[in-house]
């Protein structure tokens, strides 16, 4: 009896819209951006764990802003190549490039964390709207891909909330780890978008 139930469960699971790695003709941008953010988020967790050891190599301090600039450049390429949603991709590209610049200024000691966050918080909120509700093509109730896009937007809003809490309560280790884990979550949510890409 148990074997039949497990068999039914597997059969039902097999009917779920899971098509990882097939973009249906569209550019497979999501998984590469997802892997990039997962990688950089993991490095940010490592940065917190390593403490001062991380700063021994000067270039390591600039990993996060450099990643944002690279993501911005990648998004510029996507907005050039992708036939649809050009304005949305271009907006994201500009936000990523400006975010990379302000984070770089902070890491180089030219501006304070609060000054950098003055740009980062609104940028994350706007990005959440652009990636989530505006880019989620499809019915949010029925389209898995639209729901996954919304998840990416929600993660961006969570990151903005963590930044806001940092401004309100000051820097704490918990908030630093939360932000780094949030960037990892952003990467994971983009990978999930690709996983469900065939479901739209």
């Amino acid at each position: 009896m148990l074997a039949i139930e497990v068999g039914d469960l597997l059969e039902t699971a097999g009917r779920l819209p899971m098509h990882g790695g097939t973009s249906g003709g569209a550019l497979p941008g999501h998984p590469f951006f997802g892997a990039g953010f997962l990688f950089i988020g993991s490095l940010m967790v490592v940065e917190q764990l390593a403490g001062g050891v991380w700063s021994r190599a000067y270039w390591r301090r600039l990993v996060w802003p450099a990643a944002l600039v690279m993501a911005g450049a990648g998004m510029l390429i996507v907005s050039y190549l992708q036939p649809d949603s050009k304005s949305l991709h271009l907006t994201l590209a500009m936000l990523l490039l400006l975010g990379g610049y302000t984070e770089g200024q902070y890491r180089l000691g030219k501006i304070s964390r609060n000054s950098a966050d003055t740009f980062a918080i609104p940028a994350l909120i706007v990005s959440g709207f652009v990636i989530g509700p505006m880019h989620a093509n499809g019915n949010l109730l029925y389209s898995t891909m639209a729901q996954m896009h919304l998840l990416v937007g929600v993660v961006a809003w969570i990151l903005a909330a963590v930044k806001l809490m940092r401004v309100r309560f000051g820097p704490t280790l918990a908030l630093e780890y939360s932000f780094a884990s949030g960037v990892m979550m952003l990467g994971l949510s983009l990978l999930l978008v690709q996983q469900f890409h065939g479901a739209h």
Partner: protein
Amino acid sequence: MTKQLRALLIGMLGPALQATGVVWDLLEHGVFARGEIGNLTLEHIVSGPAHLMMATGLALSAICIPIALQVAAASPEELAKPEDVPDEAEFPGELRTAEAAK
């Protein structure tokens, strides 16, 4: 947190991601999309989320294992994070309290 634990977490982050990617791939091909195992494309192999997660874990391991060794050999002073750039527009805590008391 002890430096040994920090080093262990740093060293295990990459392998943990790789393991998650392997589990994801096994679930995809073994449970969710069993019929597609015979129709794998190059696009799927290159841009499959599970495969990219494994690749990310591999790259992370290559970078993080030397850092884990450095952390394991570091002194507690070296593990302390460098201070942030102070914000000139921000009052120190005591001054803010004194301002509020007026």
